[in-house]
């Protein structure tokens, strides 16, 4: 698939770096699967302690884009260009991807707890980093499960298998697991698509509560969710960012016709 980049309009909002704290940004990003260019034209800045939603039809490249932000595309796709985290380009040789992924956590579409106890799930990453002090681990388990708003439901069954949890609880345990290593950025790839409406609204509440301390980037297919939850929204189509603006503006007065069509459901 060769993308024709220049025959349509795009609008990408740019923050003034003097006045805004930019946590992450991408510049001249190009992502290839084999020889196929799957993603380009996505010079996007993510402001610290905000929630940014990535929306767009299936195959628009939003998940591919998200996965490259913490180098999860290593070995899957070729990523060219700059991925800036606190001003440092993390897409260059010599970067310790394990440290990158500690600082930039990720939660997946399907709740994916390990076949271990809830406690071992949450402390997995810490234990791999050599933290075995029970006092510290206990504390981390309690704080992160509270942050993920699932502590009350699981506090009596911390040593039971995490796979016996319901989808919504498992997803929040996965969020706690990602928070346990104290990341700065949280990437979420359609975290609510496997959940029922009640669990979804609880998850959204959790994310809102996390916002003051984390920069959250979330891929979603659910446009109401993007509108409810996010401060900024990027609309992707056919492997490029078409419009990036404040969520309110995207959903009320989009600058690009294509975005308007998509958010109002007249797409295609």
């Amino acid at each position, binding site marked *: 698939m060769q993308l024709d980049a220049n025959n349509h309009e795009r609008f990408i909002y740019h923050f003034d770096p003097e006045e805004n704290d930019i946590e992450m940004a991408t510049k001249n990003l190009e992502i290839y699967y084999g020889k196929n260019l799957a993603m380009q034209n996505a010079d996007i800045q993510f402001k610290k302690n905000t929630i940014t939603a990535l929306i767009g039809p299936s195959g628009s490249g939003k998940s591919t884009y998200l996965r490259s932000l913490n180098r999860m595309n290593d070995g899957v796709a070729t990523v060219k260009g700059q991925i800036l985290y606190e001003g440092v380009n993390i897409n260059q040789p010599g970067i310790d991807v394990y440290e990158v992924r500690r600082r930039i956590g990720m939660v997946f579409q399907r709740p994916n707890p*390990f076949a271990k106890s809830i406690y071992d799930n949450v402390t*997995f990453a810490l234990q*791999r980093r050599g933290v075995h002090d029970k006092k510290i681990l206990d504390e981390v388990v309690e704080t992160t499960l509270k942050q993920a708003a699932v502590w009350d439901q699981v506090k009596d069954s911390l040593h039971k298998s995490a796979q016996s949890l319901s989808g919504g609880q498992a997803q929040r345990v*996965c969020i706690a*697991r990602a928070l346990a290593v104290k990341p700065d950025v949280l990437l979420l790839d359609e975290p609510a698509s496997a959940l029922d409406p009640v669990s979804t609204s609880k998850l959204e509440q959790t994310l809102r509560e996390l916002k003051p301390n984390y920069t959250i980037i979330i891929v979603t297919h659910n446009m109401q969710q993007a509108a409810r939850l996010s401060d900024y929204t990027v609309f992707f189509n056919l492997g490029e960012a078409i419009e990036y603006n404040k969520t309110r503006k995207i959903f009320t007065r989009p600058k690009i016709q294509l975005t308007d069509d998509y958010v109002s459901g007249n797409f295609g």
Partner: protein
Amino acid sequence: MQNQKLAKQLFKKSKTARYERFGRLLCFSALVMIMAIVIGIIVFIATKGMSTFLKDHISVRDFFTGTLWNPGTKTPSGHAAVGALPMIVGSFLVTILAAIISTPFAIGTAVYMTEISPKRGAKILQPVTELLVGIPSVVYGFIGLSVVVPFVRNVFGGSGFGILSGTFVLFVMILPTIVSMTVDSLKSVPTYYRQASQALGATKWQTIWKVVLRAATPGILTAIVFGMARAFGEALAVQMVIGNASLMPHNLISPASTLTSVLTAGMGNTVMGSLQNDALWSLALVLLVMSLFFNLLVHFIGRKGAFSK
């Protein structure tokens, strides 16, 4: 009127319905035949094996604890010399030792084939392990006899025949079984386990060790048990290198025997219905019970370890 006609049409057995019944009958009769054969084998071996105790009045205790095997004669202390303990110990020793040596090699190979270099694994290692399965056991025995036995003799001393040589031959023989089943169980670990672990900043090695292998543990245990079942039942190759002395093994390099090696060595030399013959059937019964036990074990592990999603 109309309805009666319709009802008649609907109740008439059509050609397709007859075919359907015929097919079902065919499958069912195949099943019944296999069941009959299996039950027949079990009943036959059981009655034959039990006649040592029921007809020839050998005590079960003598059979399982006696250490002298020479059916038809008596031990110096007056008991019948049908002590199967040396063979039972020999069988278990070669089986367990072979499994202990094979398992780390098998897991290492399987991890390389699935996690580290799947392409090379599929291209080179897969055919190699499949080839190892296909080599006839007499060839393994022959190689054992002409390579392993002299090697053991030169390095560890003794005649070279014994448990150790049997273990080395079985190690190679059960390796492909354990490898291919471990590969299957590693492949069945969902990809999202690996992704989740890597997204948390775990290294590849940590992911393999702490997530993939842990999740695949039931499958790997099943693989080991299958390998052990194969080692326990292997006759020819073991018989060629173990020395076939029905003595209690005192060390790993003195000649010993297993249940299977005594069976293959003795079955041509006894008269049906004699004590010597019945004693061999008792050994066969022990083998059968053990293989049923291995099967049950596999069943039990498999039921405990299924993935929840």
